[in-house]
């Protein structure tokens, strides 16, 4: 298969999966994060411990779950614990190395919104809300965020701050007393953004193949900082694409099969 025969969404999911170290304990949000987490487990990171907020610890699904509590997760888990336990002892207790979140909006300090577009009391679009996102963002050792990059998502000011990244930048996160380090990478369909070590402002550090800096800047609602040593993300290889597509096909068949 020629290298260019992949979509920008596949590039995003595959790059997100690559950033998961083998053996890490990973608290997974549903959607894009779940696809990337399972791709990682099926490729370079087989010993990754997947934890879903339904209380399933060490889940090993063969198809992607539609919800965070599908039977597929509890039947393949090492342990299933209650909701108060997963949030208190495991997440707040500091046992989880990495959290993985999606979002509807993100700002330059990697704060995210998954609650509402428009005014909270008179919303244009009412989104699902936090769920476990604000706790995952607060308590995991570090956090990965993945979402598609465009002007509506990458905004100067969030309509609602659901989950904290670096708040006002600098040391404002530490001052609030949140134990986790915060978001370390934002993986989009155009490239990778990482927080500046001092100011914590998201900086474009890698471009996916075929994407230009101008494109990413135009898709960002604030003046985007670009790293001087800008890298190019490696294109998906044939094995990564095959495993991802197999996973997606199995999942589509499984979800359509029940009616």
């Amino acid at each position, binding site marked *: 298969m020629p290298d260019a025969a992949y979509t920008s969404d596949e590039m995003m999911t595959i790059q997100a999966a690559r950033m998961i170290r083998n053996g890490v304990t990973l608290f997974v949000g549903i959607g894009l994060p779940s696809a990337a987490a399972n791709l990682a487990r099926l490729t370079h990171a087989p010993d990754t411990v997947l934890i879903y907020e339904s209380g399933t610890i060490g889940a090993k699904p063969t198809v992607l779950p539609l919800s*965070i509590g599908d039977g597929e997760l509890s039947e393949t888990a090492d342990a299933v614990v209650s909701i*108060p336990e997963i949030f208190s002892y495991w997440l*707040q207790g500091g046992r989880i190395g990495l959290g993985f979140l999606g979002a509807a909006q993100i700002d330059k300090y990697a704060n995210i919104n998954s609650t509402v577009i428009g005014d909270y009391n008179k919303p244009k679009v009412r989104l699902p809300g*936090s769920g476990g996102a*604000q706790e995952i963002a607060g308590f995991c050792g570090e956090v990965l965020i993945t979402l598609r990059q465009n002007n509506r998502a990458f905004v100067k000011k969030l309509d*609602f701050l659901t989950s904290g990244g670096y708040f006002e930048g600098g040391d404002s996160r530490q001052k609030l007393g*949140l*134990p986790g380090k915060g978001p370390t990478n934002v993986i989009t369909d155009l490239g990778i953004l990482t927080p500046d070590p001092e100011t914590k402002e998201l900086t474009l550090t890698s471009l996916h193949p075929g994407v230009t800096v101008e494109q990413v800047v135009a898709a960002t609602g604030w003046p985007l900082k670009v790293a001087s040593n800008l890298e190019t993300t490696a294109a998906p290889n044939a094995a990564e694409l095959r495993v991802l597509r197999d996973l997606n096909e199995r999942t589509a068949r499984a979800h359509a099969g029940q009616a």
Partner: protein
Amino acid sequence: MEALAHITSLSEAIRETVRDGDTVALEGFTHLIPFAAGHEIIRQGKRDLTVIRMTPDLIYDQLIGAGCVKKIIFSWGGNPGVGSLHRLRDAVENGWPQPIEIEEHAHAGMAAAYSAGASNLPFGMLRGYVGTDLVKYNQRIKFIDCPFTGAKLAAIPAHRPDVTIIHAQKADRKGNVLMWGVVGVQKEAVLAAQRAIVTVEEIVDDLHAPPNSVVLPSWVLSAVCEVKGGAFPSYAQGYYQRDNAFYKAWDVIARDRATFQTWIDRHVLGTKDFAEYKRSLEGATSHA
């Protein structure tokens, strides 16, 4: 000596236990969602309910669309993996079929509030919520200083439902209940409530519950009702899988007021119980 749970029909349990204006929690985290009980509340036309649930899911979308709800307390209001809950959104955004008050939390806050209720504490406590906008809009999230370390902690008033309703796998003939798999926050929600109803897949002679199982003894429950398949379209581990296709079909049914109304009239209000509802759905050419 407390009274043992009354093994009864679901319609009788709802009639005797749920009153207009009650605060009601129908819990079950993706798994074991008590849909049959939700439908019976709709059939009996209960009104002005304050409903508590971490994930409103389709069950509260149906209760809201049917006009049973005046206030919802929740932490994640979507159709998992599919998108919006359209009836919830229509109520929040347009006040249809009636305006709805919302009290919004995050999952850990809801879990802490149920645990506090079960523990007879006035509030639940957790780290978190600091710096987020939720605290600007929910006046019931407050911060306190730890008396020992000075750490800033969030406090949420305890959930104390008038009635909690859950679905489980099994009960024995005395009304002791056994559940397994994703057990969510149901134990806490039952023990936080004044009254509790449990629907089960089956009533058996002996639970054969291994030590440390999640068992709710008969004497903390008001009523136990056998409703086979009562968690459909969610699932009951060991009995049936989640019907993900129904969750996807719901997006189409609930998107439009008229389609929703036709669906609820035909399949829920037009049927006498959950078994007839399931037959009604099977008889339709599509879920709609």
